[in-house]
């Protein structure tokens, strides 16, 4: 964790163009960056709460009074005022995601076009483009745009993130073979990154949890003290219910 923060501070320092050698970076920079992230997260949370309330109240998408428009503007202003910071990458991704949720496709595309291929906002923004395709039941734009980013970016983590969402789009379209290949490319692009891990998980889902495959077996003690051994239940139909009381 300490090491992570240390690298984060170097990274933020580099983005800010402070010009100091890495050794000169002091913890207050990391603390300030973390505080900025915490602050923007509060703004983002407030935005999503208002969208939820709007929707619960019967509000329709793509209307002039949709709260996504105003919150998107707030977050985009933040991006412009704090270029290159981690907080700005969050603001960027959620600004566009809000437009997607509000079904303001053209505005979302126009904003997306302003995000350069090496802008770390893509690590989060990628999922917003997937969401657009899933909502519209048409992944043409999603796959086209993300493929261009994947081909042009110099950042391994961005490449891994956009490949992950291309793969998710392909899987949703039913092209499991293409999705598997794309997930493998995502996994290989930036080993250890969150996207890479997720891609590995999705490959596992395809290769171990698809319909028709033998269910992974386990043996565990139940709350009532009895042991449940899945393999011993062959011959009976079984429903595994993953749930929670709340």
């Amino acid at each position, binding site marked *: 964790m300490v090491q992570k923060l240390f690298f984060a501070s170097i990274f933020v320092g580099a983005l800010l163009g402070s010009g100091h050698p890495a050794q000169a970076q002091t913890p207050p920079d990391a603390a300030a960056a973390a505080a900025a992230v915490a602050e923007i997260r509060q703004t983002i949370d407030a935005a999503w709460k208002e969208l939820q309330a709007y929707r619960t109240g019967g509000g329709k998408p793509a209307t002039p009074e949709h709260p996504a428009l105003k919150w998107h503007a707030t977050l985009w202003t933040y991006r412009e005022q704090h270029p290159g910071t981690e907080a700005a990458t969050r603001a960027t991704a959620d600004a566009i995601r809000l437009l997607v949720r509000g079904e303001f496709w053209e505005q979302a595309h126009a904003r997306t076009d302003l995000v350069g291929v090496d802008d770390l906002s893509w690590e989060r923004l990628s999922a917003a483009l997937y969401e657009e395709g899933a909502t519209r039941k048409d992944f043409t734009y999603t796959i086209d745009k993300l493929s261009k980013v994947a081909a042009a970016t110099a950042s391994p983590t961005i490449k891994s993130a956009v490949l992950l969402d291309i793969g998710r789009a392909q899987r949703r379209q039913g092209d499991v073979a293409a999705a598997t290949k794309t997930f493998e490319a995502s996994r290989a692009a930036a080993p250890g990154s969150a996207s890479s891990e997720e891609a590995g998980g999705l490959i596992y889902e395809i290769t171990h949890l698809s319909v028709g495959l033998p269910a992974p077996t*386990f043996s565990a*003690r139940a*709350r009532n003290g009895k042991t*449940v051994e899945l393999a011993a239940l062959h011959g009976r139909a079984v*429903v595994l219910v993953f749930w*929670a009381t709340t």
Partner: protein
Amino acid sequence: MFVGISVDTNLDRLDTFVKEKAIPWAQLADGKAFDGPIPKLYRPNGTPTLFVLDRSGKIAAKLGSAEQVEENLRKVLTQP
């Protein structure tokens, strides 16, 4: 048969809930939520997620709600 895998972290609350609602099937829970070994094995997308397994132990369906359990179970049970 049904097997519950609870991702609750408060196991006392789980036990109370199961007792109050008289849920008859076994509950597996280790308090580790989605990081427990069985959720890791099955990667549920949130709760509820249901896996219907046929008599040979193969995955017959993965469901995001309990709504289609009955029709999927019926399919599985009518298989030879």
